[in-house]
């Protein structure tokens, strides 16, 4: 079980800020594939992965091949717009 968090338009498209997911996915990319297959809302949220960023246990990952084994929390969001 892993906590999956969504922010900004990813959250809006999926309609949830977070959920617990039971998954065997080993990488961020495998988790994305699983989620995207769920229904139209998830498919829309994950349609363009180049527009998405992810963090594993609150650390930004460089790309979606990043491992999630042992992770407690994975977050998906658009590129940050702080400052």
């Amino acid at each position, binding site marked *: 079980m892993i906590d999956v968090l969504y922010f900004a338009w990813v959250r809006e498209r999926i309609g949830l800020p977070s959920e617990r997911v039971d998954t065997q996915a080993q990488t961020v990319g495998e988790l994305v594939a699983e989620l995207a297959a769920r229904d139209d809302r998830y498919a829309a949220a994950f349609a363009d992965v180049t527009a998405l960023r992810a963090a594993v246990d609150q650390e930004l990952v460089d790309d979606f091949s990043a491992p999630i084994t042992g992770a407690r929390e994975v977050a998906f969001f658009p590129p*940050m717009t702080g*400052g």
Partner: protein
Amino acid sequence: MEIRVQSQPFDAGAELNQFTSAQSSVGAIVSFSGIVRNNSAGDLRAMEIEHYPAMTEKAITAIAQQAQDRWDLADVLVIHRFGLLHLDDPIMMVATAARHRVAAFAAAEFLMDYLKSRAPFWKKEHGGHAEWVAAQQSDEDALQRW
């Protein structure tokens, strides 16, 4: 080093004075304040800032630590708001203190460039319609110079 993530407004001048008076024999203080400006349509009613609470302070602290490792700084302050803001409200500020102006300026610009693209905030403009602010390629490119 002080990092604050908050929904309440802050007084940039009072923060600058408090930061300055906490230093001793520092020659240069640089501050940056970010303020809610209008959208391109000119009809902004509010700006909503979402963030990732468990990550935000950690990410900003890591950025500030990098700045301290890189330049000879006496101190760093970062304040960043989230929640619902209005036109001309303060969004965030950074301040840097150093013996010399070159370090104070470089560190403040470094902090801003990284906060822009690597701190987990997302801005939504509420105007005629609501729209998430898109990340700029120029902001991503700005990281290349460091």
